[in-house]
């Protein structure tokens, strides 16, 4: 946003995150989305990392009064401040990732991540030998809860007898905590672990790698981005959100037809959400599993699978 006097025809987009964008995950995806908008739409962009609710209003007001057209607020924590700012600045459009409140110019952008983790759960169920799988999260926010519930449901869809462990470390970045939580689950017998972490996710892979090196069979499942290449020796597959694409399409839609008044859902249908097996390990996966995951994916696309959904948006019945 250096050029304040730019002609108003060009799109001006801003991004708010409450964590560092160097996490190679959730926030990094949003930042990549912003840069993608800058490149593809010749937009001028700006980013601010906020730390506390006190800063939310301030950032919205600052961007709105500086003439930004669209503000991506990447987390449900922004929802209340977004509504307040929306009332004060009717011309701005605020997109709240995972937000729960809608108004004419405040639009929740709902990532149906559970569609990906459901598939991941199925894959995990096929791979587990101990019939115990684990989930390690940072903070129990709705997307994390939703992702984990769907993972559980995916596991149970294959084998209702499989035990699913869950742990939260309370911190997205605390690698030591993430590692120990994973180690604790592995030592309880879990042999497939999915995470919902940011920067600390690598510690999960590291912990799995260490037991694999010790001769056990165990897998990790990547999340948010396609993490398959990060630890190709232990990652079974990744539940992917293609955040940049979602941001770009949202911005395009704003330019073409405008957004507002209703939440935007992104899911497997637009290929924003996906589950991808790690090509390095795919020969270990039974054909039946690959087949079943593929079939279920299309069924989900068609809306034929009854997924446990966290109803995020106020007043929403069952949207997609």
């Amino acid at each position, binding site marked *: 946003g250096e050029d304040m006097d730019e002609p108003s025809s060009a799109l001006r987009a801003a991004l708010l995150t409450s964590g560092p964008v160097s996490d190679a995950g959730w926030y990094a995806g949003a930042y990549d989305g912003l840069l993608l908008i800058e490149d593809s739409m010749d937009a001028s962009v700006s980013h601010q990392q906020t730390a506390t609710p006190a800063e939310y209003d301030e950032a919205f007001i600052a961007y709105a009064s500086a003439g930004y057209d669209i503000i991506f607020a990447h987390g449900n924590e922004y929802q209340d401040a977004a509504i307040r700012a929306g009332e004060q600045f009717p011309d701005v459009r605020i997109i709240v990732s995972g937000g729960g409140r809608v108004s004419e110019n405040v639009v929740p952008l709902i990532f149906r991540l559970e569609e990906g983790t459901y598939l991941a759960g199925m894959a995990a169920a096929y791979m587990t030998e101990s019939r115990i799988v684990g989930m390690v999260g940072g903070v129990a926010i709705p997307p994390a809860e939703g992702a984990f519930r769907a993972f559980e449901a995916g596991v149970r869809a294959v084998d209702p007898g499989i035990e699913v*462990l869950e742990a939260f470390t309370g911190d997205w970045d605390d690698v030591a905590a993430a590692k120990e939580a994973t180690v604790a689950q592995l030592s309880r017998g879990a042999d497939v672990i999915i995470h919902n972490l940011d920067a600390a996710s690598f510690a999960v892979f590291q912990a799995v790698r260490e037991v694999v090196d010790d001769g056990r069979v165990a897998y990790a499942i990547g999340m948010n981005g396609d993490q398959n290449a990060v630890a190709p020796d232990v990652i079974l597959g990744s539940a992917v959100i293609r955040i940049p694409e979602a941001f770009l399409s949202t911005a395009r839609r704003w330019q073409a037809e405008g957004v507002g008044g209703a939440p935007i859902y992104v899911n497997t249908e637009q290929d924003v959400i996906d589950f991808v097996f790690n090509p390095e390990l795919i020969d270990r996966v039974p054909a039946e599993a690959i087949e079943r995951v593929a079939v279920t994916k299309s069924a989900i696309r068609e809306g034929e699978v009854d997924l446990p959904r966290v109803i995020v948006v106020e007043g929403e019945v069952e949207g997609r």
Partner: protein
Amino acid sequence: MSQVELVLFLESAVRLGIPLALAAMGETLTERSGVINIGLEGSIIAGALGGALGALAFEGAGLGIIAGAMAGLFVALIFAVFAISLGADQIITGTAVTIGGLGMTGAIYQAQFGATGTELSLPTLAPVAIPGLSEIPIVGTAFFAQAPTAYLAYVMAPIAWYVIFRTAWGLELRATGEAPAAAEAAGVRVRRVRFVATLFGGAMAGIAGAHLALAHAGTFAENMSAGKGFIAIAVVVLGRWNPVLVLFAALFFGAASALQFFLQALGFDIAYQIFLALPYVLTLAALAGWVGTSRAPAALALPWEPHR
């Protein structure tokens, strides 16, 4: 808890305790000289990044640890220049150094690995089992099949104890922390002693950070120190400014933290935030039951100006 679980729990406790022990051990010497380095967190995160970059550059975790120590020392040097040479308030200086340390490591990391970061895979410092000792039932692997940095902590504890309580320099150190005016009158170079103790503390914190990156997580992430500097300062108090007790206090805190993950893995259906608070509550309880408390060095946090 079954025996296997107990072993796993102890292993986890030691792993979580070691970085705290390393940082707290250094801080013990620093505080013994009358300096409280709240900037420890900054040294830890610098040590983590320094360790990561060093390990990548020299293609070895061992040299990474040394690089981490250097990075931690450098951060402590900035603290020392302000808090000791300039006589600025130690708490404010420490606060600034922590903010700056966290920021600078983030900035360097982004400059090195791109704004959106990478999942860094680092050369790791593999555990080394000590023949004989590691075969002791139950505690053997927990204590004696750890990364070399753990053995550094074990060895440092008695050495630091010896230095503090049995050497001439240790005597000067304690005198400096208790009564700098008296120490100066006896010919001790108070500010020099404080400088050395603070830099040592920074180097140890740097090793703690490098241990986190290289021996524990195998990666670097922004803010991965996650408040361990503050906990290390609490561990120093719990260990009564005695390096040997500090080692045990760190292991105790490690055990309390390990418990939280263990209980979660055992599937207790309690809000996880309660587990997260557990180590702190247990430490409070331990303190309350820890009869006959000891005092902090009398001149702790007081800037020293020679009387001239």
